[in-house]
């Protein structure tokens, strides 16, 4: 397997941008292409950047609907716009844009299979000081359990642009998970990612690290640290969690024999659960989980929270060693019996 061709030129100087920064600007670009894009937000259009879409051209002002602080109405107004032939993107923060309106997403958007893109920002613990009430760590679980829903978790600005475009051009419901924090640019600016694909960001044969979102940066740093110990980790970006690219993941685990899943989400029902489920059926192997361990978030600086919840590169490094130990024990047992 070749390291993905969609990656950013490593000789370019490092650059950081949030995924949410791609939102409004990409909607404007897609509307410029002639797609019937509309956005519905709930008093957070500046934060989510949907306001940038409305402001980009005078004729787009009418294509952003601000429902006020009313997330349930936001989802169903988007549903009605989709029934009327529009490609409707919703906003708000992930905690409200999925959790507050789960029944609307389930019973209207997904049950009717509408062209609504659930695309809130501020997912995960990376909203930091806002605390546990605002740190959404169950959204991947909620959204991936829904029939007809696809789930995209872009890792950086460029892949987020691609995710929004992909969602617009894929009929039916799509969830896009965006964050507030600035994260390093990993993909080439014009990268076109695909639905149902994971991307190998770094090749290695000793341990597989499957990560998504802001954990990509941590995974790549952990891989560097492991490399200095002579351990070659393969880092895979699970850009699309549903449908999951099981072929790419299984091919890697066949080579390495063990896997670490890393996500800024609960360990219950997220990327790790989905990967473990696929491997249990297709290629059983030791799986270790980096994620929030069945608890709510709390206030703090992002770096403090990453360390506290065991989401940083150091945690991934340690868990990778555990995964390899478990693999070696299993192999030893197999040789013995």
């Amino acid at each position, binding site marked *: 397997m070749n390291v993905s061709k969609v990656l950013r030129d490593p000789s370019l100087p490092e650059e950081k941008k949030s995924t949410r920064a791609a939102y409004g600007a990409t909607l404007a670009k897609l509307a410029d292409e002639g797609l019937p894009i509309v956005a519905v937000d709930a008093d957070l259009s500046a934060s989510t950047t949907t306001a940038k879409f409305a402001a980009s051209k005078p004729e787009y002002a009418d294509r952003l*609907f601000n429902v006020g602080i009313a997330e349930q109405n936001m989802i169903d107004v988007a549903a*009605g716009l989709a029934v009327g032939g*529009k490609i*409707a993107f919703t906003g708000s923060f992930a905690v409200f844009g999925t959790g507050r309106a789960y029944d609307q997403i*389930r019973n209207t958007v997904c049950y*009717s299979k509408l062209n609504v893109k659930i695309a809130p920002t501020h997912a995960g613990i990376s909203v930091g000081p806002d605390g546990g009430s605002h740190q959404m760590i169950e959204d991947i679980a909620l959204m991936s359990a829904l029939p007809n829903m696809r789930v995209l978790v872009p890792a950086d600005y460029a892949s987020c642009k691609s995710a929004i475009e992909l969602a617009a051009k894929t009929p039916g419901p799509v969830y896009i998970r965006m964050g507030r924090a600035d994260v390093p640019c990993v993909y080439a600016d014009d990268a076109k990612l695909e639905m149902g694909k994971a991307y190998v960001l770094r090749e290695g044969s000793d341990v597989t690290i499957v990560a998504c979102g802001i954990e990509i940066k941590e995974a790549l740093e952990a891989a560097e640290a492991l490399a200095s110990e002579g351990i070659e980790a393969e880092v895979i970006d699970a850009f699309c969690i549903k449908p999951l690219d099981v072929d790419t993941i299984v091919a890697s685990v066949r080579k390495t024999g063990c896997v670490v899943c890393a996500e800024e989400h609960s360990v219950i029902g997220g990327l790790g659960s989905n990967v473990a489920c696929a491997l249990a059926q297709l290629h059983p192997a030791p799986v270790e989980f980096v994620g929030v361990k069945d608890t709510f978030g709390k206030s703090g600086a992002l770096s403090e929270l990453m360390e506290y919840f065991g989401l940083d590169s150091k945690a991934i490094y340690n868990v990778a060693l555990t995964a390899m130990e478990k693999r070696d024990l299993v192999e030893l047992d197999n040789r013995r019996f």
Partner: protein
Amino acid sequence: MSNVAGADLNELANQIRIDIIKSISEAKSGHPGGSLSSADIMTALYFGGVMEYDSKNPSLETRDRFVLAKGHAAPVLYATLAHAGFIPIEELASLRKFGSRLQGHPDCNLVPGVEISTGSLGQGLSIACGMAAALKLDGNASCVFALLGDGECEEGQVWEAAMFAAHNKLDNVVAIIDNNGLQIDGCITDVCSPEDLGEKFKAFGWDVAHANGHDIDDMVKKLSVAKRDRSGKPHCIVAKTVKGKGVSFMENQAGWHGKAPNAEQTAQALAELTNHK
């Protein structure tokens, strides 16, 4: 569009009631009370010359849209769509059965003429508002009708939609409240009263009319006026109705919200509705 003459409208509404009783009885489950209460409203909409539609072309651009916010009243919608030619009348006997297009609550991916799947209360008016906003963006003069239950108005989302519609001047929305006064646990005023629904919509900036939901001529007039009036306010018609209307032992009984009649009760109900003819 279908235009049935005045006296025949009452007969058609009665036939729809017969179909409701037959299909729910055959299914051995379903919601007769709120289906019967809205049979005259549905007759006015679909057969009184109010709504534009073409059953041979359900996606006709100039059609008026209908949202059954109170999705549990699916039997009245199915019977109406059958008489309007969207589905065969015989299919009504398949209500709620395995493999049927006629799911317990309406599924827009299965039944022609159903614009949107409903069943979870409180969502229909928001969806109607989104549909109306899309029509306005497209310069399409069609109208969106939504039928809500009065108990449904206990859902907070109804008032999120009320606020949104008035703020966005969605005068192409007509919300009809099937004001039968009952919900599963009893009288809406006993369970958790939403108080005066008309005054509430008025306070949100809507144009509000009151009607007798069993006087089809009155409904046709008020629906037609609301449909034509594009003066910037969304429209609400509070239609006073009787839950279980037309079947003596079901009338004004909350217990008949979601219960199928047995064979004996079915025979009595059909005898009453047939004699009424």
